[in-house]
């Protein structure tokens, strides 16, 4: 009996503790729901924060956060961050969770094309606009009205890449190199197509560079033997940095014209300035150059906020989210209002003017930047826009 009483007392105590925990949990949920409700809009961030694209995902997250912290019209925005990892299933699951978690008006989503393809049906199901900077051409070519892209698609930006090599540098013996990622393979095919349209057949082609390749000397030996007069690389950051670094160490003086990964400050930090001489890259924008007062003001604010130099990904995502926030401030109240406004309005962003082509592509500008060997900050040497980025 005594034991039973003790047991009952213990159970009561346990029940009391469980009850308290449940009450506390419910209070926290209510408080967080209250906070969510108190915001004017819910716009989740769903991006690769961890994994091999975390550098790119981190940049776009920062750009989105910076815009959301300065929403125009005094609006307050609830913007939880969801990590997609770097998998299609992770991305679709994360977006589903983000969109079912409240009443989203839009979502800022992944730079990774593979993840975008997986997230597109989720956006269509919830009927919520996705604001992205993914370059994969086909995401705006598949009749999904909820996709809005704030960086030029790869099909356009590769035209700028190829035209600069052929028309400005006057190079005709190209060594064309890419890695084996989907990004690398897609860019390789587009560049090859564009060079063909420009009347140039690469003298050397290699699209089999695995992202974990360490020694690039066999590749560089083959490039040398091919008699190439320029090296064109489309790759994620790590192999590209190794190609450039080891080419310079091997005394190869050919110009190397890269895709935008090398413009990221975290990539240029791997080089001594002299190693970047005669290295160029395409990029949607180059905020680190602080080429205009508007970009300088934004870049300085970004550096103050995050302690990092900005890059084109951060600026593209900032402009995209800020356009959506501006339209919300002007009266877009539902995802459908916002989708319609994104489709028809023109927005003057920090990097460029954004206007949809009817398919959700709002950005049609690209720049070529080059390093002169004295600094890690490149200079803009060529600007391409609109029809410049289409080859017949």
């Amino acid at each position, binding site marked *: 009996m005594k034991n039973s009483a003790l047991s009952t007392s213990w159970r009561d105590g346990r029940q009391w503790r469980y009850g308290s925990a449940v009450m506390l949990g419910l209070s926290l949920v209510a408080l967080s729901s209250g906070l969510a409700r108190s915001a004017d809009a819910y716009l989740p961030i769903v991006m690769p924060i961890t994994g091999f694209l975390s550098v790119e995902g981190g940049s776009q997250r920062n750009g989105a956060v910076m815009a959301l912290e300065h929403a125009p019209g005094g609006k307050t925005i609830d913007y939880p961050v969801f990590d997609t990892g770097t998998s299609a299933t992770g991305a679709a699951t994360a977006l589903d969770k983000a969109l079912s978690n409240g009443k989203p008006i839009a979502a800022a989503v992944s730079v990774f094309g593979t993840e975008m393809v997986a997230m597109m049906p989720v956006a269509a199901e919830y009927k919520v606009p996705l604001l992205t900077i993914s370059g994969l051409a086909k995401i705006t070519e598949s009749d999904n009205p909820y996709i809005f892209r704030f960086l030029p698609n790869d099909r356009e930006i590769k035209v700028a890449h190829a035209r600069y090599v052929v028309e400005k540098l006057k190079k005709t013996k190209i060594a064309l190199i890419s890695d084996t990622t989907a990004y690398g393979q897609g860019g390789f095919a587009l560049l090859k197509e564009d060079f063909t349209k420009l009347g140039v057949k690469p003298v050397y082609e290699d699209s089999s560079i*695995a992202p974990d390749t360490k*020694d690039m000397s066999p590749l560089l030996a083959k490039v040398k033997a091919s008699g190439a007069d320029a090296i064109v690389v489309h790759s994620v950051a790590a192999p590209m940095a190794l190609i450039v670094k080891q080419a310079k160490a091997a*005394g190869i003086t050919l110009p190397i014209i890269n895709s935008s990964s090398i413009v990221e400050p975290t990539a240029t930090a791997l080089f001594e300035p002299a190693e970047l001489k005669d290295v160029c890259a395409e990029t949607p924008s180059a905020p680190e150059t602080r080429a205009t007062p508007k970009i300088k003001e934004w870049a300085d604010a970004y550096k103050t906020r995050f302690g990092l130099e900005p890059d084109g990904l951060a600026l593209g995502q900032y402009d995209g989210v800020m356009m959506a926030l501006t339209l919300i401030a002007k009266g877009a109240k539902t995802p459908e209002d916002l989708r319609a406004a994104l489709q028809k309005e023109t927005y003057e962003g920090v990097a460029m003017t954004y206007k949809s082509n009817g398919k959700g592509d709002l950005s049609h500008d690209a720049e070529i930047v080059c390093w002169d060997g004295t600094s890690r900050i490149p200079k803009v040497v060529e600007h391409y826009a609109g029809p410049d980025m289409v080859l017949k």
Partner: protein
Amino acid sequence: MITFLQLVINGLALGAAYALVALGFVFIVNATGAVNFAHGDLVMAGGYAAVGLGSLAQIPAVYFLPLVAVIMFVLGVALALLAYFPLINRPPSTVFISTLLCGIILQNAFVVLFGPQAHAAPPLLKSGVAHFGEIEISVQAIGTMVVAAILIASQYLLFTRTQIGRRLRATAEDRQMAQAVGIPAFALIAATFGLGTALAGIAGALLANQFFVYPTGGIPLSVYAYIAVVIGGWGSIAGAVIGAMIISLFQVVVSAYVSYAAATGLLYVTLLLIFVVRPQGIFGERVQRRA
């Protein structure tokens, strides 16, 4: 011919670093019979230690390489305490999983401490290239080969010429019997984890200058180490070195004549052939059991 020689030398330089990675791996295999699949991540930890010390001291890596080894030794002992000793009487696959999990924890720790981006450590002595006729070798590659040669020779002498080496081998062969004759098996196993990890750390510090260090960079290195040990013969020091050299020569020399993808395919075909023709590996003994 000059190009071929140049590629062979580049391959040997990369192979020297891979050999250190494989040696650390085989060191732990020899002493414990355990496959440490956090080994590649420990290589990265050594690289990050070099990045951190280099940014603090702003001096060539040769001056702080011993400190990297000490830090990594401590980390190796900690790994043994965390992932090996609590599971010492469980099936080998349990240790395999526990080290794999420790590797994932390390990868996430790298992201938190250093960020997701790649970093470069300072050179061993200095940057630049040395010329031998028409052959060019980076000073870092020469340094890597010298350091690797010293450590490989030291490890060989340790195992074959010293009492502690004999005790380590006795412990690996039969821990209970070694304990029965008074050998402090647990202390030796902990020290082995420390030494193997120190070798991995030195390899990481050497690789991190030319090939960078990043959170997931250790994953392929664990695989290379495993393959090197399988090719060379399970538990064989000479075999691990030869296995590492075969991998690097495929990556550097063979890929100069076919594509990278084809060279990788040929490496694995060679591995399969070795399994068929000589399953115990080049230097392995037929009686040994593969984990």
